[in-house]
């Protein structure tokens, strides 16, 4: 029997990722189909494998979801219930900045390669007349490293996925404060099925929607810090892609 590949956007902390191993076990049992969970430390490596058609099922960030649907023929299956992707701009507690308006040209930004969080972070700088032409951006590989850049004085502000910011250790997070937080509400990660596994979508969707009503399924959801799944209609996907398009300069 063919083994398919499941992957997850590399923007989650190790605590979240352990839940995806549990989900993969549940997935294989529920579909009676072998899946291999392939995790990536870097967005670039995952995108390379997407281009090589090595990934069949993926929990993608909204920015990559647009590319997967339009360019690679993926179909959105479901999204997590009662959650959305939000970004946080954080500074050190000792920073003199109290709002975005206090930031000046030349501000040093630590960010990850997470495209939607970076995009949301840059949008939140616009009210201070800041854009990529007048800020110094340092992309790093994880949100922990973004925090380290702040703590070491290598950056003035840091862009975080809100969930990732709150996943930082108390010791690290207590040295920072939130300057501004997005309240977009309508952008979220999505589970997408590639062309090779589209025949599995009806059963997969049924199983996902029933997870919260089943004791074992509920435990899997809790390990992923989720409460359930919502079906993604085609129009839901198109709407989110349109939204992302409005935000890309």
């Amino acid at each position, binding site marked *: 029997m063919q083994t398919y590949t499941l992957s997850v956007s590399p923007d989650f902390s190790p605590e979240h990722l352990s839940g995806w191993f549990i989900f993969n076990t549940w997935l294989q049992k529920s579909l009676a189909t072998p899946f291999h969970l392939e995790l990536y430390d870097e967005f670039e490596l995952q995108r390379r494998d997407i281009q090589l058609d090595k990934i069949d099922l993926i929990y993608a960030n909204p920015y990559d979801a647009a590319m997967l649907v339009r360019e690679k023929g993926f179909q959105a299956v479901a999204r997590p219930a009662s959650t959305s992707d939000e970004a946080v701009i954080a500074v050190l507690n000792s920073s003199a900045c109290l*709002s*975005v*308006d206090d930031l000046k040209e030349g501000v040093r930004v630590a960010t990850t390669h997470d495209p939607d969080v970076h995009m949301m972070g840059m*949008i*939140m700088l*616009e*009210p*201070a*007349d800041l854009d990529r032409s007048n800020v110094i951006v340092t992309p790093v590989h994880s949100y922990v490293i973004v925090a380290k850049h702040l703590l070491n004085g290598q950056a003035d502000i840091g862009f975080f996925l809100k969930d990732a910011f709150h996943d930082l250790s108390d010791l690290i997070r207590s040295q920072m404060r939130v300057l*501004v*937080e*997005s*309240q*977009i*509400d*309508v952008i979220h990660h999505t589970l997408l099925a590639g062309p090779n596994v589209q025949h599995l979508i009806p059963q997969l969707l049924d199983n996902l929607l029933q997870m919260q009503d089943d004791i074992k399924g509920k435990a899997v959801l809790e390990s992923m810090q989720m409460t359930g799944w919502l079906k993604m209609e085609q*129009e839901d996907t*198109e*709407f989110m892609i*349109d*939204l992302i*398009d*409005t*935000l890309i300069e």
Partner: protein
Amino acid sequence: MFITYHDGSSREITVIDQEVPYPDGKLIVSRTDTTGVITHANQAFIEMSGYSLDELIGINHNILRHPDMPAAAFKDLWVTIQSGKKWNGYVKNLRKDGAFYWVKATVIPNIRNGELMGYTSVRRKPSRSKVDACTALYAQMKMDVPS
């Protein structure tokens, strides 16, 4: 000025010179059909416009049009999006209570299976320098071509 709702009723709005600051981090999202009639509005839209969801759905987006906005700005918007392109601009919007708020607006056509189904508009917080520049520009445009 008079505003007419989708049920045919109308009310007069007294325009007042009071700006409501755009909140940090929020996005106003709405969708319209191809004629500009609102089909979707998010919570931020409801809060900033002062209208309820029931009042917004079914009414033309031009309910937000502030008398200080030059007609040429909206003409440019429609010419751009009807040609299938994305439009960006700074807009002074009229609230239900007669006050105003400035936005940086982006509008894109919603194409489904090659067919235009409507438009999505996203508004975000503009910088004060851009607002000041547009205030002067739009006043000049209104003087040059009174609407």
